[in-house]
């Protein structure tokens, strides 16, 4: 349907894709950037980019995987730009500091500590951890999205969990 010559059909097909993919992609972005407003902006940019880049979709992966990959790249670009613009030791200290007072954060003390520990990981390692720990994604699917080997993903996840445990044990 996305390759249909009728622009109305293509638009309708894209609308269906947006509706079905949004929740899963949103939560992945949100766990990375923490703020709802930032996640919302990245989501909009993701789908606008997907729409204008449909020419480049060759059908080699699923549409979901392709759009998810765009969302991941947009999120990582956002975090990099934020890192460059903030003169703090921890690039995400700003996000974490605001999180406690964020009206869209409903977690208890333990969840806040876990979120803070995850935020100290390098962006890509944080992404791998979130995909595996919270979304319980299979390594093969993660490999298709991130373009990284299953072995490298397993190693990254293993290191991430050990780091987080070390941070949380230190604070206890």
């Amino acid at each position, binding site marked *: 349907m996305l390759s249909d010559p009728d622009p109305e059909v293509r638009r309708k097909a894209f609308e269906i894709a947006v509706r079905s993919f949004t929740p899963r992609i949103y939560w992945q972005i949100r766990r990375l950037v923490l703020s709802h407003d930032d996640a919302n902006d990245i989501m909009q940019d993701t789908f606008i980019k997907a729409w204008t880049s449909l020419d480049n979709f060759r059908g080699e992966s699923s549409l979901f995987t392709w759009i998810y990959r765009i969302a991941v790249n947009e999120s990582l670009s956002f975090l990099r730009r934020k890192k460059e613009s903030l003169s703090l030791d921890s690039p995400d200290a700003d996000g974490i500091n605001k999180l406690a007072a964020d009206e*869209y954060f409903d977690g208890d003390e333990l969840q806040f500590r876990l979120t803070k520990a995850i935020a100290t990981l390098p962006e890509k390692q944080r992404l791998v951890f979130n995909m595996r720990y919270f979304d319980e994604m299979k390594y093969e699917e993660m490999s298709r999205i991130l373009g990284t080997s299953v072995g490298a993903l397993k190693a990254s996840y293993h290191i991430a969990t050990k780091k987080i445990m070390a941070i949380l044990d230190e604070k206890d």
Partner: protein
Amino acid sequence: MNAEKKLSKRFGKANPFTVPDYYFNDFTGKVMNSLPKREISVSAGAKAMIRRRLIVRRMRQAVCAAAVAGGIFFGVNTARHFYSGNINDMHVMTGKVNTYDEYDRYLDDVFDHADISKDEIYSYVSGQDESY
């Protein structure tokens, strides 16, 4: 217990983040309204993929049509072979009316068996023979 299981046991996997009410319901409409309205051209790669799928679909249709035609041909030939010894049934199948000669041969057998001549039968049927 490995690190993941320890984490999961202590901190769980619940989602502590929330969204404004009706956020997901409204999001699709907002995105669609913000999309540029320009025509999107289909890439050469996508066109090639669509062409390949069309060819495969047409080949499947041709194979199915050939199988059906072969089945009909085989069925008709089998039926013709099966019914070739029974001319009456064949004529019933084809809708042909039996010829006068075929009825006549049949009646000859009946008359021989009943010891009645054909002329007696014909005169009875025509009402010419008043003895019956």
